[in-house]
């Protein structure tokens, strides 16, 4: 069996940062990702990030991805792509399916002294009549097509959801030459930052607040050709008689994200529900270690936030794992972790950030209480 000091699941910002820190400290690190390329969703974020200069504000997500991949190479991180982690097993064994679809895949087991799960998040869906038709897709899927694969998913787009993803992807669809025929939001006001919303409204995109999509109508080939939207009442139920029909071949759903943490569920790690973070969140301490000793978590798997917070949490997890293995002195590790927590604090400011800071503190407190009560799970 292959032996590694640290196995990191997911090569997005959190996983890359964790792998870089652990490897730089001297640990042997294997970084796994099921995609064709590392970088997670960074390479579809062609916009400039906000934040302080410590977080490379004003830098595009794609450029941050390039830098992280380069640092991983420089620090000797071993990366396996097209590698899906199928399960974690007793004794810190990582079950991996390696290879692309349509080829003979290998099933491999790697033994890791420490495991860091940075599996990211997946998109929420909204169901309406016709929601399974080709042409209905996640906003992130549309973003991947235009910014990574350089192909338009369609010509005329209805964006459902006005959070930052809905707003940014709407703007990027226009940059890619698509027409955004409507931005539809069930709430009475736009969900995301005003600066992103302004770009959409300035461009003249019709915004339908208190509206939702009620039906997607296909053409003869079975692909979306018309979209029916309607006004909703205070309990978000469509109001009969308010329907409008829009000509569009894509409905992009930007209805938020939820953490991907199945591997930690498999290990029976302790979880709690956090609406702010988008779902069930694995409890962890300030080292990013879960209730299963030796298994760490970072990034959107610990609650949906942003690339920069994922990166800092990844750093903390990587440093903590290397510290436990004796590669970094406690003094150096504690100083580095404290600095990362400080930068995280700077990212969790403002009306949106403060809610996330409070929610993160609840998770840390809940972890302490559960472990103090002797609640321990896993291997």
């Amino acid at each position: 069996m292959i032996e590694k000091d640290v196995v990191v699941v997911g090569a997005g910002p959190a996983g890359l940062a964790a792998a870089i820190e652990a490897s730089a400290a001297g640990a042997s690190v294997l970084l796994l990702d099921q995609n064709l390329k590392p970088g997670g969703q960074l390479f579809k974020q062609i916009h400039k990030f906000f934040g302080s200069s410590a977080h490379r504000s004003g830098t595009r997500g794609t450029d941050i991805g390039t830098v992280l991949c380069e640092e991983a190479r420089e620090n000797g991180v071993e990366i396996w792509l097209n590698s899906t982690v199928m399960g974690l097993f007793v004794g810190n064994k990582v079950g991996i399916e390696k290879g692309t679809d349509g080829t003979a895949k290998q099933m491999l087991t790697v033994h890791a002294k420490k495991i860091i799960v940075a599996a990211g998040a997946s998109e929420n869906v909204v169901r309406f009549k016709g929601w399974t038709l080709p042409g209905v897709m996640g906003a992130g899927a549309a973003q991947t097509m235009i910014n990574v694969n350089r192909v338009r998913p369609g010509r005329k787009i209805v964006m459902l959801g006005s959070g930052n993803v809905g707003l940014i992807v709407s703007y990027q669809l226009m940059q890619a030459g698509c027409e955004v025929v409507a931005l539809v939001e069930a709430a009475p006001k736009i969900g995301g930052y005003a600066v992103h919303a302004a770009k959409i409204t300035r461009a003249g995109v019709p915004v339908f607040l208190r509206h939702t999509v009620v039906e997607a109508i296909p053409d003869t080939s079975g692909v979306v050709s018309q979209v029916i939207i309607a006004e909703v009442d205070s309990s978000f139920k469509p109001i009969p008689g308010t329907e409008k029909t829009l000509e569009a071949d894509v409905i992009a759903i930007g209805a938020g994200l939820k953490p991907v943490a199945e591997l930690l569920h498999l290990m029976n790690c302790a979880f709690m529900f956090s609406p702010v973070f988008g779902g069930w969140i694995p409890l962890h301490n300030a080292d990013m270690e879960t209730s299963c000793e030796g298994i760490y978590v970072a990034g959107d798997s610990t609650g949906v936030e942003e690339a920069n917070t994922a990166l800092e949490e990844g750093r903390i997890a990587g440093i903590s794992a290397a510290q436990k293995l004796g590669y970094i002195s406690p003094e150096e590790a504690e100083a580095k972790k404290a600095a990362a927590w400080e930068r995280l604090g700077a990212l969790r400011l403002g009306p949106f950030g403060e809610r996330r800071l409070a929610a993160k503190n609840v998770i840390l407190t809940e972890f302490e209480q559960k472990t103090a009560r002797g609640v321990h799970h896993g291997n």
Partner: protein
Amino acid sequence: MGTRIADHIILGEDIRIPAVEIFVDGKAFLANEGEPILSALLANGINVNRYTAKRHEPRGLFCGIGQCTDCAMVVDGVPNVRTCITPVKCGMVIQTQDGLGPKEAAYD
């Protein structure tokens, strides 16, 4: 219907030239070697990847990152290939999937 983005205000010009031939339900199309199969299909106006087993409903791109399996097709005779994360190779034979195998019409 999708098309390629030749020029982009941030990403610049797409210098790739679709030069490899792939075959979709018996018809030849041009694609970029190494790009996801799904992208090549969208660029060629193909939006339906498969039909469901029970009700034969069409499915296409949904998540774009290998999670949902809605874009699965039969590639070189192998069913359930997630086309959004499988790279194009020269001469690939791709068939619309119907249930768990190729759509009958693909043989016509």
